């Protein structure tokens, strides 16, 4: 089980069981849905953006432990960040879950998802919520898909 613990770290199991910011924002400035057509996982993200800053961010949805924990950790990381940093943070996070690079400081606890890099079929689970955030910022009406 030791190698599985690299993937399913305590922080991930905790965020899966008790996801943070798991709610609906009643009046979001931005929102979008993300779907993973392979597994049917769905996530909706809600953002409240004021003066270029993410004042509040929340999500809803049903997914596996990796996608739920990733969405939960993402909301913690992005809250209070300038919108202008989102693309950069997504790229950095994508590198964390797909390459051997070290986790940059700005990503906070998201480094616990580095174990995903050994499970290529699960990278889409880890990045689903991020795709949805990017779609929300681009004001896309159609749900964004990981495929």
């Amino acid at each position, binding site marked *: 089980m030791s190698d599985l613990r690299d993937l399913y770290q305590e922080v991930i199991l905790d965020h899966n*069981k008790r996801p943070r910011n798991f709610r609906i924002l009643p009046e979001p400035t931005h929102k979008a849905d993300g779907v993973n057509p392979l597994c049917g996982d769905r996530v909706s993200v809600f953002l409240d953006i004021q003066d270029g800053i993410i004042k509040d961010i929340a999500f809803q949805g049903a997914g596996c432990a990796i996608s739920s924990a990733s969405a939960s950790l993402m909301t913690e990381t992005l809250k209070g960040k300038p919108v202008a940093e989102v693309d950069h943070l997504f790229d950095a996070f994508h590198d964390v879950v797909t390459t051997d690079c070290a986790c940059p400081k700005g990503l906070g606890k998201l480094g616990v998802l580095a174990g995903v890099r050994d499970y290529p079929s699960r990278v889409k689970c880890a990045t689903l919520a991020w795709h949805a955030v990017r779609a929300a910022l681009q004001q896309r009406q159609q749900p964004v898909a990981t495929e």
Partner: protein
Amino acid sequence: MSAPQSMSTAPAHDATLDVARIRAEFPILSQKIHGKRLVYLDNAASVQKPQSVLDAITDCYSRYYANIHRGVYLLSERSTTAYEGAREKVRAFLNAASAQEIIFTRGTTESINLVASSFGGSTLQAGDEILITGMEHHSNIVPWQLLCQRTGAALKVVPFTDAGELLLDEYQRLLDSGRVKLVAFVHVSNALGTINPAKTLIDLAHARDVPVLVDGAQAVAHLPVDMQALDCDFYAFSSHKIYGPSGVGVLYGKQALLEAMPPYQGGGDMIRLVTFEKTDYADLPNKFEAGTPNIAGVIGLGAALDWLNALGLAAVAAHEHALLEYATAQLSAIPGLHIMGTARNKAALVAFTLRGAHPHDIGTILDREGIAIRAGHHCAQPVMQRYGVPATARASFAAYNTRDEVDALVTALWKVKELFE
């Protein structure tokens, strides 16, 4: 040898399979995955291939391969004989009346699309209805939706019980609209394991002169099917789910229907005479086999049917049923595990959810234990919606699976619980 036609008239095979000997015929099964013995329980998605099938394909390519039907040289004649020999094997396996009723396609999906496009496209019109069931695979939903969009016909759906059994009263009620022009249903559900009462469903449709297509993808490797006894109008299945290679499928169709239908695709091999003004089409089955087919794949399917006939489908069915009963009992004993699909007549697959663990996480953890199962919606999203779950985990069995492998599955599921509770 001819195929068993039903459980009762199957040739006298020993009811118990020599599973150790069967396993030795599957080279892929002897490997380790993540250092653990491979336990392959994703047979409803695709079945592994015995050595005799691999040999038949290699033999074709290394000894007698050439394009079929038109060659006047020896290799082409040999390839043609082997290819048409496989068609006769399929005919015998299905107990179809004529080899002309056997069309080779790329798979179940293409077989259904062929009927939707050719039969549906030439017979349906606005106001007509197509009747399917609530437990169809996407491949027996989407082609009909496309047809409905083209023709203005409407798609109607037969509901099923919590156990996963079709509501026959509802089926009859929907047929009674008088507008149904085609019934299409899955013989064995890939998401629930339900074996639908095919003969009853076909007879009820025929009582109203409605033709019937049966999606047999999950049926043919697990229970004997007989076209003349069932009296269905179309029957579709895939080679890769019956120990043959992927990329090959079969469409059985009644000769009179196939003869009346327009071609599905145009091209070589499906013509009698082509001029720029007009084309006369070839006779069955070539009319529906445009272009060079998957020659070695079809020959591999023939070898797979030989292999399965030698085992005896009745013996395979009995072995798999025993595994199903054992797995159902063992899995039911795990607290928080819920089995989806508990039809009285069920094929050897168990779809389940486990409290606190998403099926994808179950799939990943089992993989680390060397166990291959499927996790997801199984291309049957309406079934998931029916039960209000996003996905399930599914273990499905074949002739080579053992009780030890069920035990390995159960042990691994306890590890999943340990991690997520």
